[in-house]
């Protein structure tokens, strides 16, 4: 098998090649490091590449395998990690000046589990500052570009991870999803992104944006890869009080099964029409027809309170965020500005936060401070948390008649860099369909379902009740197998190769 083809293989196939000894982890890691070196100047998907550390890990995996050790199915497979997961020995900046060069003295639980499973961490991927954005443009270290069209955004906040996977710089990545930060990037880059059930994957060591909404999850090119990675990442963690103390459902089994016969699929009525691009709706409805054709029972369901979810989210999220980000105060780690011996601690804190946070961070910090402040809390934060109850009730009612719900992942294909930066509300609307699952804690995923007429990817969102993450993989597995047959190959084959890529078209 040629090197070029190795780069495009799904992670589960790479795992099999590594297990059988046909490929070495060091060789595979070097290939990916070369691809990163070739494309990162164009895409800016990685903020930090740990070439030496990755090669060292890869060689130790090869040595372990040579000595006959039993290794997991993904041992030796390279992976990219979003830059808000704490990593020993590698900077964790969250895309912010505030944490430029900060190296945590501990690993996030997910990172510990990746290492234990023998995955090779290539480096840290770009993101909107502290995950605040839907385009990766608010990163203090420059935007990431979409490999489908480098004038366009790769989604956000996890645009670095989605771009890295879509551009074959890594077969796998991890992200975090607070309002759509895994799924929306998945949708606009033609990749798979899963937001597990809240509490299904540990948040310990993932720098918090909004604690009651954040959920780490897999970013991959195939459904089975996502399931396998989800199985490595997930499961109970005693360091996270909100972690669910139950085993995960059989995820990779569900992805392999990929069968939707008899499944009751609810199409969310509220997510369509005005504001939704025609091509997005067309690809979405074609996918729904495929499900119906395979024996799924498709019904339309109404979730009226989903229309208020965006507003509730943009009050709850900044409220929690304003408290979570208070710790960035120049005292114990990170940036310190203005400590010249004459200024008091209050002024140094304020100056540091004034310089260290970008414009969107300031907007949200002030909105959150306002929404929680005395005299306004009931009206803003309190009302929003009530709406959340209503959204959860809509889900309950819908899941009484459906096994999964579906909608477009995001109303449009990837928009152009700069297009929405001066209009916060238009940016926020990218998360319109993804937010309800974060509010209610549901499992939710985006799978690629085709391209728009101008050749940009479209995703379908699948939503399952809490702890029924396996249903996502059944639907994803089915759509992927069916569509790849139609297209005669994976969706990413249809991407125009980037200049310098090590991948050769089939």
């Amino acid at each position, binding site marked *: 098998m040629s090197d070029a083809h190795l780069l495009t293989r799904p992670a589960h196939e790479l795992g099999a090649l590594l297990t059988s000894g046909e490929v070495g982890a060091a060789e595979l890691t070097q290939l990916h490091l070369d691809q990163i070196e070739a494309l990162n100047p164009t895409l800016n998907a990685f903020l930090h590449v740990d070439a030496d550390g990755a090669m060292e890990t890869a060689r130790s995996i090869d040595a372990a395998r040579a000595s006959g050790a039993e290794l997991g199915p993904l041992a030796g497979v390279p992976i990219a990690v979003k830059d808000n997961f*704490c990593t020993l020995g590698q900077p964790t900046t969250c895309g912010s000046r505030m944490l430029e060069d900060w190296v945590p003295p501990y690993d996030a639980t997910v990172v510990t589990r990746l290492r234990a499973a023998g995955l090779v961490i290539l480096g840290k991927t770009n993101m909107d500052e502290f995950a605040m954005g839907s385009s990766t443009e608010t990163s203090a270290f420059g935007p990431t570009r979409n490999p489908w069209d480098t004038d366009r955004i790769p989604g956000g906040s996890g645009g670095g991870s989605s771009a890295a996977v879509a551009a074959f710089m890594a077969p796998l990545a991890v992200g975090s999803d607070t309002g759509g930060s895994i799924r929306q990037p998945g949708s606009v880059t033609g990749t798979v992104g899963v937001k597990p059930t809240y509490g299904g994957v540990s948040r*310990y060591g993932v720098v918090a944006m909004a604690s009651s909404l954040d959920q780490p999850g897999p970013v991959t090119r195939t459904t089975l890869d996502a399931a396998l990675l989800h199985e490595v990442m997930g499961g109970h963690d005693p*360091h996270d009080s909100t972690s669910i103390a139950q085993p995960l459902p059989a995820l990779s089994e569900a992805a392999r099964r990929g069968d939707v016969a008899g499944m009751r699929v609810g199409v969310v009525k509220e997510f369509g029409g005005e504001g939704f691009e025609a091509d997005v709706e067309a690809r979405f409805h074609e996918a729904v027809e495929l499900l119906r054709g395979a024996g799924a029972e498709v019904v339309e369901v109404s979730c009226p309170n989903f229309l208020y979810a965006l507003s509730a989210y943009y009050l709850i999220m900044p409220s929690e965020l304003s408290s979570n980000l208070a710790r960035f*105060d120049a005292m114990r780690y990170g940036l310190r500005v203005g400590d010249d011996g004459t200024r008091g601690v209050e002024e140094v804190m304020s100056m540091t936060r004034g310089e260290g946070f970008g414009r969107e961070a300031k907007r949200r910090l002030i909105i959150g401070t306002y929404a929680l402040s005395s005299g306004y809390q009931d009206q803003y934060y309190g009302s929003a948390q009530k709406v959340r109850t209503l959204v959860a009730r809509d889900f309950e009612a819908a899941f009484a008649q459906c096994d999964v719900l579906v909608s477009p992942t995001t109303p449009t294909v990837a928009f152009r860099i700069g297009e929405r930066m001066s209009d916060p509300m238009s940016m926020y609307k990218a998360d319109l369909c993804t937010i309800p699952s974060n509010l209610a804690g549901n499992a939710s995923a985006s799978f690629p379902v085709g391209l728009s007429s101008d050749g940009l990817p479209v995703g379908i969102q699948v939503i399952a009740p809490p702890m029924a993450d396996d249903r996502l993989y059944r639907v994803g597995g089915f759509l992927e197998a069916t569509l790849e047959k139609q297209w005669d190959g994976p969706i990413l084959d249809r991407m125009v190769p980037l200049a310098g890529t090590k991948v050769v078209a089939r």
Partner: protein
Amino acid sequence: MNDEILDFDEVLESYEPALGLEVHVELNTASKMFCGCSTAFGDEPNSNTCPVCLGLPGALPVVNRKAVESAIRIGLALNCQIAPWGRFARKNYFYPDMTKNFQTSQYDEPIAHDGWVEIDVEGETFRVEIERAHMEEDAGKLTHAGSSGRIHGAEYSLIDYNRAGTPLIEIVSRPVLGAGAKAPAVARAYVAHLREMMRALDVSDVRMEQGSLRCDANLSLAPIGSTTLGTRTETKNVNSLRSVERAVTFEMRRQAAVLAGGGSVVQETRHFDEATGTTRSGRPKSDADDYRYFAEPDLVPVAPSAQWVEELRATLPEPPAERRRRLASEWGFDEIAMTTLVNLGALGLVEDTVAAGASPQAARKWWGTELARRSNEAGIGVDELTITPAQVAEVQRMVDEGKLTDKLARQVFDGVLAGEGDPAEVVASRGLEVVSDDGALAAAVDDVIAANPDVADKIRDGKHQAAGALIGQVMKAMRGSADAARVRELIMERLA
């Protein structure tokens, strides 16, 4: 700037004080409230810290079950309702000793609420209503560097976060009205009562000098006959029982002077100055007091089942009033003697000393006079002296055995308090021992056996515990200058 103050008697002519106390109890758990770091006091700076208590990005808290159990037990001991479901809350404000710039606490859903305690002050019983008791975490420790060593004029500060995240229970009283002239004594007695209670519950070291029991005293004055409360001040850093009393007295006199001069009391935080016995202005209430409380999303609610609460109730020591009655009758002390010991904070010390072998009278004598005097001179609580009940009992035993006179015993206390070691070591190093005489002792034993033939028969029949009565009489005859163990030996030899 010195504050004007009024004579205490003049205060009472015109004003009625309303007293409120917030007491912070540091729990004696092995690990912190939300992480597995040790709560040990005095370790190397920042050696008991981790991502959680340092507030590092990404770290998450997990509640210490023993801390919750202690909170429930404290709530039950305070006659509180235990909330069947309650969340933690974040109290948001910026201060460098707090690693997250919010304190994880409880707000409108405290684990315990609506309780009461009764305290005795100079023969009068006061009922103090408890508004709430809630769980929260402590902050780190600041050291101010520069010429003064104090916060004002410091060039910079240094922070040790070993204490950050230590579990605290905050006990908030409702305003205590009608105490009048006794308000300072009530404040002191209340804190002493809580300290005694925490010690009996074994939930805290309650060492005020180390900060494991801290008190903020709220005080306001209203004209006599008024039905509304006046503007209150909150005095912080009141860190000994004596200081509680002094701080309340000073605030009464200061506020009365302000009001009498036609001014109005400023609602503010004040700081107690141990050296001068005065309070000085801290910061006024401001915008920074908008704490933006909201439910802590990183922690799930605490929902103690009725069964769990009942299991914890079964572990409670006897209620303070009952305990006081029982001890009074066991020890043969009158009401005044008991109240004195309670308000001194010495009831548990006396009990422990008796348990270690001393007679109640002797234990009371040492703690209630000799050691109380020393603690008063040092401006600390009697329990904060560096001498244990076991050591006091040991000194008394040496007195009973005739090895020490009371006068010598005082010198032994000097040595122990000066850190010269256990009583035996102090006696040896200072050469304080009295010589004993076996001949006189043998004669006294023979006299006592002859005078108590019934008891002697019981011992011959094998009831060895009856020997206690004879030993006591011999000790009495020897005026305590005998070795009780030797007395027992002599009795047993004769009645074998």
